[in-house]
C-alpha cells in the first residue's frame, strides 16, 4: 500500500451545506467493484429525496476484464437536481474512483474544481502500473485541479465489518457500500432504502447484509467526522418541482416490457416474444421472461431469423408476435420482416441500437439504424418506424407500437438504444385504467371472405385466425391478387398491391398526432430536430439558449415513418434546421429527401451521448456564425 495521501484542510460542517441546483456524480471502479449496484442505490435514494434525475451506466465490453485494468473500469453516472434533469450530465462534479484505473479513465471528464473521492487502499504499485501510471497521481500533482478526498476505503471497510467474521474477499466486497455511505452523507441522502434492499437481497446471508450496512454506515459517519478539503461541507439539493403522483425509477427496458404487455392487453391479444440474446437487447427478453404469468410467452430462438419467424408465426395464429435485437441481428431479420409486411401481419420489432457497423462497439450506444429501419429491406417494403426518447417514454411507445401494428396489420420497428435500455429515471407511474382499449376483431364471417379483404379507410387487411371454422385460407410471400387474395403474377395487380402497401403506411400519418414543438416558437430562425435518446441534451441546450434570448426551437420526432403530416410545413417555417444525431447523418437524409430542406447535420459517433455544450455550440455557430 502506498502512502495515504489526504488533503484535509477544513472541518466539515453538516449544518452549513452548500446549496446546489444540480450535481453530476460518477461512481467508477473495477468491474468487480459493484459500481452499477452502487449507482442504482444512489438513484433510488435520490429519487426518493424528490430530485429529478437521469443516469448513465457505462460498463466494459468484457464480461470480467482482468482486475485493475483500464478496460475493466465500470462506471455509473447520475445527474440529479432541483430542476428538470434532461441528461445524465456532461462533466462530473463528483468522481468516486475506487482504483487507479478508474481515476485514469474518468479524470478527464471531472470538471476543474470538482470533487474526487479516492480509495487510496487500491493505489499500490501493481494497480498503478496496470492503470498505466508511472508515478502516483496522488503525489505528482495530477490532481491539483481538483478537490481531493482520499481515504483508505479498503482498509476502513475491513475494519468496519470485522465483527462479521467474513473472509477478506467478502469483507472487501463491502467497500462500495462504504463509498456509497460517504456519498450519501455528501448529499444528505437517507440510507434507509439501501438498508432495506441489502436485507432483502441477502435475506439468506444476514451477516453479509449486516456487514454491508455497517460499511455504509461507516462511510456515512466518516462524512460527519472527517476533515474534508476546504469548502467542502456537503451539499444540499432541494427537491425538484415535479408533477404530482406516484413515482418509481424505471429503466427503458422495464418500461418497454411493461408497455408492450399493456399494449397487448389493450389489443386483447396474447403476447409472444421471440428473441435471441444480443447486447444491449437481451434485457428485454429477460424482463419479459419474468412476466409469463401475464399472457406473455417468451421464446429464446436458435438465432435472430428464427426469432423473427416464430414471432410472425405467432401473429399468424392470432397473437401479437414480437421480436427484438440490435443492429446485426436486425439485419438478419430483414428477409422475414419482408414476409410479414407482404403477408400483412402485425409484428413488433424492437431494435436496441448499438455502435456499428458489424460487431462494432456492442456496449456503446448509437442511433445508426434509422436507414436500416426505414430502407433496409429488399424491394418496396415500407413499414412503421417509431422511436423512444427516454426510459419512461418507452412505456407509451410500446403501447403505440401495438396499436399501429394491429390496427394496420403491419410490422412496426421500434428504435431504442443501449443508453435508453440501461438508464434509469424517475417515472410517474401511469394510471393503467386510463388507456383506451383497442381490441382486435378477428374476422369470422365466411361470406365473401378472402384474406386480403381490406378496411376501406385504414387499408388494413382482415385478420382471420387459424382455428376459426370455415375461414380456412392460405397466405404467403408471393404476390397475391387484390381481388381474391390468391397468388397472382399479374402485372397490373403487382403495381396496385405495391401502391396499396405504401398507401396503407402513408395513411398512418393521419392517425398519429400532428408534430408539435417541444420548446420555442413554431417558426423562426432555427429548429433543432432530434429523435431517440438525444432528446435530453437537445432539450436542455435549447432551453438554455432560449433563456439566453436565442431564437431556437426544439422539435422531437417519435414517428420516423410515416412522418407526421404537418412536419414539412413546420420545418419550412424555420430559416434553418439542425439535426443532431449519434450517427453519421441519417434522419437528416430522410428529412432532406422528404421536404427538400437543406437541413444541417450534427454528428457524434463516439458511442457517448451528446454533451449539452456540444449542441449549444452548434446552435450558436448557426445563429451567430
Amino acid at each position, binding site marked *: 500500500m502506498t502512502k495515504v495521501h489526504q488533503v484535509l484542510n477544513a472541518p466539515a460542517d453538516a449544518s452549513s451545506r452548500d446549496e446546489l441546483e444540480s450535481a453530476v456524480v460518477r461512481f467508477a471502479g473495477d468491474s468487480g467493484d459493484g459500481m452499477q449496484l452502487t449507482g442504482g442505490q444512489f438513484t433510488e435514494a435520490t*429519487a*426518493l429525496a*424528490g430530485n429529478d434525475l437521469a443516469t448513465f451506466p457505462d460498463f466494459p465490453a468484457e464480461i470480467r476484464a482482468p482486475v485493475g485494468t483500464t478496460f475493466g473500469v465500470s462506471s455509473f453516472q447520475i445527474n440529479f437536481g432541483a430542476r428538470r434533469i434532461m441528461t445524465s450530465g456532461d462533466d462530473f462534479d463528483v468522481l468516486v474512483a475506487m482504483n487507479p484505473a478508474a481515476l485514469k479513465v474518468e479524470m478527464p471528464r471531472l470538471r476543474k474544481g470538482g470533487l474526487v473521492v479516492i480509495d487510496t487502499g487500491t493505489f499500490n504499485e501493481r494497480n498503478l502500473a496496470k492503470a498505466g501510471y508511472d508515478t502516483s497521481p496522488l503525489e505528482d500533482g495530477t490532481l491539483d485541479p481538483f478537490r481531493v478526498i482520499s481515504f483508505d476505503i479498503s482498509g476502513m471497510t475491513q475494519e468496519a465489518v470485522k465483527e462479521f467474521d467474513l473472509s477478506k474477499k467478502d469483507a472487501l466486497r463491502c467497500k462500495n457500500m462504504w463509498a456509497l455511505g460517504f456519498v450519501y452523507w455528501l448529499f444528505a441522502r437517507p440510507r434507509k432504502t439501501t438498508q432495506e434492499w441489502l436485507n432483502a437481497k441477502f435475506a439468506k446471508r444476514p451477516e453479509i447484509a449486516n456487514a454491508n450496512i455497517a460499511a455504509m454506515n461507516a462511510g456515512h459517519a466518516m462524512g460527519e467526522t472527517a476533515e474534508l478539503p476546504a469548502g467542502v461541507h456537503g451539499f444540499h439539493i432541494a427537491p425538484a418541482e*415535479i408533477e*404530482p403522483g*406516484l*413515482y*418509481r*425509477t424505471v429503466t427503458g427496458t422495464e418500461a418497454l416490457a*411493461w408497455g408492450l404487455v*399493456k399494449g397487448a*392487453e389493450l389489443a386483447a391479444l*396474447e403476447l*409472444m416474444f*421471440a428473441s435471441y440474446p444480443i447486447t444491449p437487447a437481451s434485457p428485454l427478453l429477460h424482463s419479459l421472461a419474468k*412476466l*409469463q*404469468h*401475464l399472457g406473455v*410467452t417468451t*421464446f429464446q*430462438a*436458435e*438465432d435472430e*431469423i*428464427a*426469432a423473427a*419467424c*416464430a*414471432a*410472425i*408465426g*405467432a*401473429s*399468424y*395464429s*392470432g*397473437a401479437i*408476435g414480437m421480436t427484438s435485437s440490435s443492429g446485426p441481428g436486425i439485419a438478419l431479420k430483414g*428477409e*422475414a420482416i*419482408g*414476409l410479414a409486411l407482404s*403477408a400483412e401481419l402485425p409484428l413488433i420489432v424492437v431494435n436496441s441500437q448499438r455502435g456499428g457497423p458489424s460487431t462494432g462497439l456492442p456496449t456503446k450506444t448509437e442511433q445508426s439504424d434509422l436507414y436500416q429501419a426505414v430502407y433496409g429491406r429488399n424491394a418496396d417494403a415500407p413499414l412503421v418506424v417509431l422511436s423512444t426518447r427516454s426510459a419512461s417514454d418507452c412505456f407509451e411507445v410500446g403501447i403505440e407500437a401495438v396499436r399501429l401494428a394491429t390496427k394496420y396489420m403491419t410490422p412496426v420497428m421500434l428504435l431504442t438504444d443501449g443508453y435508453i435500455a440501461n438508464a434509469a429515471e424517475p417515472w*410517474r*407511474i401511469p394510471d*393503467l385504467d386510463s388507456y383506451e382499449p383497442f381490441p382486435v376483431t378477428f374476422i369470422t364471417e*365466411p361470406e365473401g*371472405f378472402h384474406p386480403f379483404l381490406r378496411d376501406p379507410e385504414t387499408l388494413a387487411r382482415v385478420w382471420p385466425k*387459424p*382455428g*376459426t*371454422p*370455415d*375461414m*380456412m385460407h*392460405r*397466405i*404467403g*410471400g408471393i404476390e397475391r391478387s387484390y381481388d381474391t387474395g390468391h397468388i397472382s403474377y399479374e402485372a397490373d395487380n403487382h403495381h396496385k398491391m405495391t401502391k396499396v402497401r405504401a398507401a396503407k403506411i402513408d395513411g398512418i400519418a393521419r392517425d398519429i398526432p400532428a408534430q408539435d414543438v417541444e420548446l420555442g416558437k413554431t417558426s423562426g430562425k432555427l429548429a433543432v430536430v432530434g429523435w431517440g435518446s438525444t432528446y435530453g441534451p437537445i432539450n436542455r441546450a435549447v432551453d438554455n439558449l432560449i433563456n439566453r434570448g436565442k431564437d431556437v426551437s426544439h422539435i422531437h420526432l417519435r414517428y420516423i415513418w410515416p412522418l407526421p403530416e404537418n412536419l414539412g410545413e413546420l420545418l419550412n417555417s424555420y430559416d434553418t434546421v439542425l439535426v443532431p444525431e449519434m450517427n453519421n447523418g441519417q434522419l437528416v437524409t430522410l428529412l432532406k429527401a422528404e421536404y427538400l430542406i437543406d437541413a444541417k447535420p450534427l454528428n457524434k459517433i463516439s458511442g457517448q451521448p451528446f454533451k449539452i455544450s456540444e449542441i449549444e455550440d452548434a446552435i450558436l455557430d448557426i445563429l451567430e456564425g
Partner: protein
Amino acid sequence: MNDLTPPEKRTAKDYATDQEVRWCPGCGDYAILRAVLNTLADIEADPANTVFVSGIGCAARFPYYVETYGFHTIHGRAPAFATGIKLANPELDVWVVGGDGDMLSIGGNHLMHVIRRNVDVQVLLFNNEIYGLTKGQASPTSRAGTRSPSTPLGSVDNPVSACVFVLGAGARFVARGIDSQQKDLPGILKRAHAHKGASFVEVLQNCIVYNDGVFADITEKAVAADRQVVCRHGEPLVFGKDGDKGIRLNTETLTLEAVDIGEDGPEAAGVLVHDETNRIMATMLAGMDDESLPVAVGVIYCDPGKSYGDGMAEMKAEAVKRSEGADLKSIMHAGHTWTVAD
C-alpha cells in the same frame, strides 16, 4: 369447404382446395399430396384446426392444395414459423412441409432445433435429392458426383442423410416413406400424427424434370422388394421378394449385414427384430446406404418424450402459481415508489 354445416365425414377430396396444382405433370409431389389428403380424411382432421406451414420450393407449394389453414413462408424457416404458431396456439395441429434444400441446406439449423425441442408438429421432408424450383442444382442430399448446372463436373460434397441427421439432433420419431407407395404412406403419416412431439418423415420423391429416376434403383417394381426393408416394431427385419432375406447385426464389427434366411426362419438366421424404441438400431437402419443393404422404410424410430408444448405449459403454470396473482399494476407498483404531492 365454406359451407356452415360440417359434412358427415370428410373424404380426401374434401381436404383438397380448388387451386390449380402447379407441379410438373408426373411429379412425385402429386402422390404425396394424395397420401396426405387420405391421411387427413382417415384421422378426421378438423380443417379449421389444421395448419400446413412450408418454406419455399416445389415441395413447399404444398399448403396451397390442402383445404386447411396454410402459410407458405420463406426459404428454410418453416420449422421456426411452426414453432411460433404452436407457441401462440398449442391447440393447432401443425404440419411442416419442405424439400431437401429447404430443410437441409438453408434450413438445416431450424430443422435441428425444432427436433431437439420436440415441438409437437409433423415435419414432412420431400427428398428428391435436387433443387426443383430453382431448376436443378445439387442439394445436400445429392449423391457425390451429381452433375447439375451448379456442379457441371459433378458435386464434390458428401451428402447428408436426412434421417441420420435428425437422429443426431435428438429426434424421437423418424420414419421414411416413398412417394409412389400409396398403400404405406398414409399409415406412416398417421403414426407421425399420433406421435406427440416432433415427428420427422422423409419421403423419397421423384423429380421427374431434374432428377428423374434417382430412386429407381430402390423403387422400381423389379427391385423394390430386394432393395427395401420395411421396419415394423417387434417384427424381424425381413425383406426380399419372398421374404427370404433379413438384416442381421454383426456384433463383432457393430455393423448391419444382409443374410439369407434359411429354412429355419428369421430367428435362426439371427435376423434382427425391429425395436422402434432403440435409438442405436434406428441410427443403423436409417444409415443403410450401400448397395449391399436395403433402404429402411416405415417407422424407423419412435420413442416419445416430453413435448415442448407440454414443457412450456408446465412452466407457465408454475409462473402463474409463483406470481400469486400479481398483475401488471402490482408489478409496476412493486419496489420503491414515492409520492409527489400536489
